[in-house]
Structure formats: structure tokens, C-alpha cells
């Protein structure tokens, strides 16, 4: 078995020293509770620097600018239109020079390479019309973490403007697909949220599916068909170590971590019946939660850990049910026509995202945890498996095209969409991709 070199993700990222800023009032704000938000024009000139800092300043600016643009909430302005060519050094800025461009916000910053080789990056966010500083922070980090610094700055800007946590300093674990459709080669893959730093965590010899992040550690759980024994696995991203989870008398599948990271909840299939179990990762004790001759699968905890949402065909068709996390009070929450699957609880607790199949089409939708307020966000021949950004504002899923009998088509790709149903975008991956799972904000 090929061992994939584990790149330690430990960061040595000294966080957030606030740069003096007056307390702002009457400030810039984007209200995300509205439906469609007009993107805020924002100017982000290259962060200033000397020597190596020049290129790093440019690169960091590109990454954070792209983050903000992709959110659909910001419109970074074309730098060629900027009046101030050395904008980053003006503190405070020449507000008039930005007002003429209709910039509402301005980000300035600089990058210094310290004597120890580490980067010191600082930025300031300015409100052009109120003429005041909204935020200012300084970070130090190892040079190899320059992209993370850019994402953290983008998160800080996002949070200052929207009042909600960002989601840019995150990663995606997913399944990379290649080869013929009747024998797809599927590999575990991981990349930054912006598709950078893509790497593969498995060699493709074993079929692997449905990876999910631990909320608390650099681990993922997934399904592997190694040795023709489909079993839930635990994989440490840092060390590359992996193990079969539990000792079950059949296929285990559909794993997810509990919110505290101490358990994995999954399905076990025996004699055609699939039931839901938890495995305590410390004691290795398995607990059975459901007892049916039907199919209970795709379990997902509520963020407080008190409840579990799952799909079941115990009522005759595949629908979504909620139960207490001890298996009591099982009740159905979907009654619409069609089949409902892959429920995932929002990190904010207020919504459940799902896949719906109806009339030959697949849909990604959200509803309240009691099943009310269903909203379908997107549909296609195939859209499946939503995963939430950690702030609960954006969903990622995979979208597939139909295949013809010669094996053309059948391409799966990752996409994101805003909770409002706007800003649907493809997430670039080197190969076809499916089963995305969004990490928490990287600690």
C-alpha cells in the first residue's frame, strides 16, 4: 500500500493582534437575512512589501480577493482603475480617490518577511463613505502558510461586513473520480476551500466513498471497499494512519462524526436491513439506535448532539426522520411527494439540507428541523449530498450529467450555492469529483 506523505498541517499561526482603530458607527453592513444581496464594491490593492514581500503581497491579495468575490457578496474592483498606486502605505487612505471609483470598502495591507523568515501580515479595512477604519489585524505565520493568512484576512473582512463568521480558512475532503463509468476509480482527496493545495489521500485501488471531517481533529471517516469488505474507516490526515472502525457483522456505511468528535454514527446492513449505530471512539463500544427491517441510513447529528436526522423507507418510501440521539421519539418530518435523502443539519441548527428525487430530477433543498418551510435551491439530472460551510450560509454538493450508452458524460463535479439559492458556482477540481465534505474553520 502506498503511503501518502502526510503534510503536517500544524501552522504556528500567531493570531490576530488588533491594530488600533477608532470605534466605528453608522458602518458598512451587508444583511444576509435578505434574499439576494447586491455585491459590495470593494477595492483591494496589492498588499505592500519590500523584496520578497512584493510578490507575497500580490499573491495574498489575489487569494483573499478571489475568496470575497466567490462569496457573491463582494465585487472586488479592477486594480487597473485605481488612482492611488501605492495605496497600501496611506494610513488613513485618500478617501476621495476611492469614492470616485464607487468603492464602498477598501482593504489595505502589507507583508514583511521577518529576520526569522516568518511573515508578518497586517491589513486594515476602511469604510470609504464614513471615512473610518473598520478593522485592523496583524498576523505572523510561516511562509508556507501564506495562503491561510489570505483566507484568514478574507474571513475577518467577511465577518466585519456581514456580522457572520467566514468560511474561507477551510478545506474540502471529497472523492476524486477517474476511469470508465462501469469501474470508476475513486480516491480520497483533500484541498483548500478555494481548490488550492489539492492532494490525494488514497491510491485508488480500493473503492472509497463518503468522506466526512471530524469537527475536532485532523481525522476523517469514510467508507472503504478494501478487501471487498465495505467498512467504515477512520483516517488521520496528519499521520496517514487508518483503521477499520468497530467489529461489525456486515457492511458499515454512511459514517459521520458526532459534534463533540467522540463518536461516529453510521449504518450497519445485516440480512437486508440497515440500522443506525454509534461507535464511541474512546471506549470502542457500539450502541444500536434503531431496530427495523427497513433501511435506516445517512444519519447526521444536530449541532447540539441532542438529535439525529436520517432517512428511512420504513414508511414505504425514502423519507427523512428525526429522533433523539438515544434512539427514542423517531418521527417522520418529510411528507412531500418524491424521495428524500442525505439530510445534513446546519451548523447553526436552524435548517436541514437534503437531496430530493422527484419526477426524474434531483434537487438540493433546505427545510426547518420540523420539516416545514421546504425550499428547493437547485436541481439537475443529478445533484446529491449537500455539505454545509461552517457558517451555515453556503452549501456544497456534487452535480452529475447523464451518461450515454457509450460511456460519454456521467461527469460529476463539485458546486456551491448560497443558502438564498443564488450564486451557484462550480468548484474547480483536477478530475471529476463527488461526495464533498466541508471542514470546520481550521483551528
Amino acid at each position: 500500500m502506498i503511503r501518502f506523505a502526510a503534510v503536517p498541517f500544524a501552522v504556528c499561526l500567531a493570531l490576530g493582534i488588533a491594530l488600533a482603530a477608532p470605534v466605528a458607527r453608522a458602518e458598512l453592513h451587508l444583511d444576509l437575512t435578505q434574499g439576494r444581496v447586491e455585491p459590495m464594491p470593494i477595492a483591494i490593492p496589492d498588499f505592500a512589501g519590500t523584496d520578497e514581500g512584493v510578490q507575497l503581497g500580490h499573491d495574498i491579495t489575489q487569494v483573499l480577493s478571489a475568496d470575497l468575490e466567490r462569496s457573491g457578496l463582494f465585487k472586488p474592483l479592477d486594480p487597473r482603475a485605481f488612482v492611488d498606486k501605492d495605496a497600501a502605505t496611506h494610513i488613513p487612505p485618500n478617501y476621495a480617490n476611492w469614492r470616485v471609483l464607487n468603492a464602498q470598502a477598501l482593504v489595505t495591507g502589507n507583508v514583511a518577511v521577518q529576520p526569522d523568515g516568518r511573515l508578518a501580515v497586517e491589513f486594515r479595512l476602511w469604510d470609504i463613505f464614513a471615512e473610518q477604519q473598520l478593522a485592523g489585524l496583524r498576523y505572523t505565520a510561516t511562509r508556507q502558510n501564506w495562503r491561510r493568512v489570505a483566507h484568514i484576512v478574507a474571513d475577518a473582512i467577511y465577518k466585519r461586513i456581514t456580522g457572520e463568521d467566514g468560511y474561507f480558512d477551510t478545506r474540502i475532503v471529497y472523492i476524486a473520480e477517474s476511469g470508465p463509468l462501469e469501474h470508476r476509480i475513486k480516491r480520497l482527496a483533500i484541498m483548500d476551500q478555494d481548490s488550492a493545495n489539492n492532494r490525494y489521500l488514497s491510491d485508488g485501488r480500493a473503492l472509497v466513498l463518503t468522506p466526512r471531517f471530524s469537527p475536532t481533529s485532523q481525522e476523517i471517516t469514510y467508507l472503504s471497499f478494501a478487501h471487498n469488505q465495505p467498512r467504515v474507516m477512520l483516517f488521520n490526515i496528519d499521520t496517514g494512519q487508518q483503521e477499520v472502525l468497530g467489529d461489525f457483522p456486515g457492511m458499515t456505511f454512511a459514517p459521520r462524526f458526532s459534534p463533540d468528535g467522540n463518536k461516529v454514527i453510521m449504518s450497519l446492513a445485516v440480512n437486508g436491513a440497515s440500522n443506525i449505530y454509534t461507535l464511541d471512539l474512546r471506549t470502542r463500544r457500539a450502541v444500536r439506535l434503531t431496530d427495523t427491517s427497513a433501511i435506516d441510513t445517512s444519519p447526521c447529528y444536530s449541532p447540539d448532539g441532542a438529535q439525529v436526522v436520517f432517512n428511512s423507507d420504513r414508511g414505504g418510501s425514502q423519507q427523512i426522520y428525526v429522533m433523539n440521539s438515544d434512539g427514542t421519539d423517531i418521527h417522520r418530518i418529510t411528507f412531500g411527494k418524491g424521495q428524500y435523502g442525505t439530510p445534513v443539519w446546519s451548523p447553526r441548527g436552524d435548517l436541514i439540507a437534503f437531496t430530493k428525487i422527484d419526477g426524474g430530477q434531483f434537487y438540493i433543498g433546505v427545510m426547518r428541523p420540523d420539516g416545514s418551510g421546504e425550499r428547493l435551491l437547485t436541481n439537475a439530472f443529478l445533484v446529491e449530498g449537500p455539505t454545509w460551510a461552517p457558517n451555515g450560509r453556503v452549501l456544497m454538493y456534487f452535480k452529475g450529467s447523464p451518461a450515454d450508452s457509450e460511456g460519454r458524460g456521467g461527469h460529476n463535479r463539485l458546486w456551491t450555492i448560497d443558502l438564498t439559492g443564488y450564486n451557484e458556482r462550480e468548484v474547480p477540481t483536477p478530475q471529476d469529483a463527488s461526495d464533498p465534505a466541508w471542514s470546520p474553520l481550521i483551528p
Partner: protein
Amino acid sequence: MNLRPIGLLAAVLLVAACAQNPAPTGGPAPGPAPTRLHGAVPGSREDFMQNVGDRVFFAFNRSDISAEGQATLQKQADWLKRYENVTVTIEGHADDRGTREYNLALGNRRAAAAKRMLVSLGVAGNRIAVISYGKERPIVVGDNEEAWAQNRVAITVIN
């Protein structure tokens, strides 16, 4: 929901018992089968695929076994009782018009339904392993009704 046509199954068993000669059991030398194609060695994988039939098809989102499927499984059981050293793995598959995890469970349910019937027809359960591939290993590529129907299947594979 677990659709088991208990009554139907019992009826088929009776008919089968009346209509067919009991297969020889226990003997190392297999008896000749009535309509054997040229080429396949008796008791081989090819023999099984050509002269018995390795697959049972299902309706959309169903795992109950049709009359045609029951006839196929009867032939499989007869053959397996004739060649007692053979073990098999039943692969359960689903078309790609369901969600991934549900389809893994559905494939398992289809394979288990086929196994249950083989066991009821006298094949020892410890000779039959099951595995589900859900929608991961389509038998026929293509998103059209004919391909989907071919992919809703339990395939008995000689180990």
C-alpha cells in the same frame, strides 16, 4: 418496509419440488445437466453463467423477487446443490437514480433477498456471501431505462 412474498415463495417451492427431479447431492462427480452448451466445463463459472443464469432483476426501488427471478434462483439452487464445493458471492446493485448511501443499503437488501431464497431452496447459508455495490459498479453504462433495468440486479458470482 421489507417486502417478502412469503406466500408466493412457498407456492414456488411446492411447484419446484413437484416439477423437477431432485438434484444429486454429495457426490463428487456431477451428473449431466439436460441442456448444456458446448465449451463450458460442468461446475465451472462459465457453466453457471451459460446454463443457469447469474442474475436476478428488480423493479425500481424494490427488492422483492419476480417470478422470473424465482425461476433463476431455483436453477441456481439446483446447480449449487449439485456442486457442493462451490461458494458464491451475491453482488447487489442499484441503478444510479437514488442517493449513494440509500442505494448501498438497497443493493444489500437485494442481495440478501436472493440469498434468503437460495437458502430456502436448500443451499447452505455459509456458502453464500453478499456484498452491495449500490450504484458504484453499473453493469451497463448509460442513463436510460434499459440500462437502469439491467443495473437493478443481484448477481451470483462463483468464488
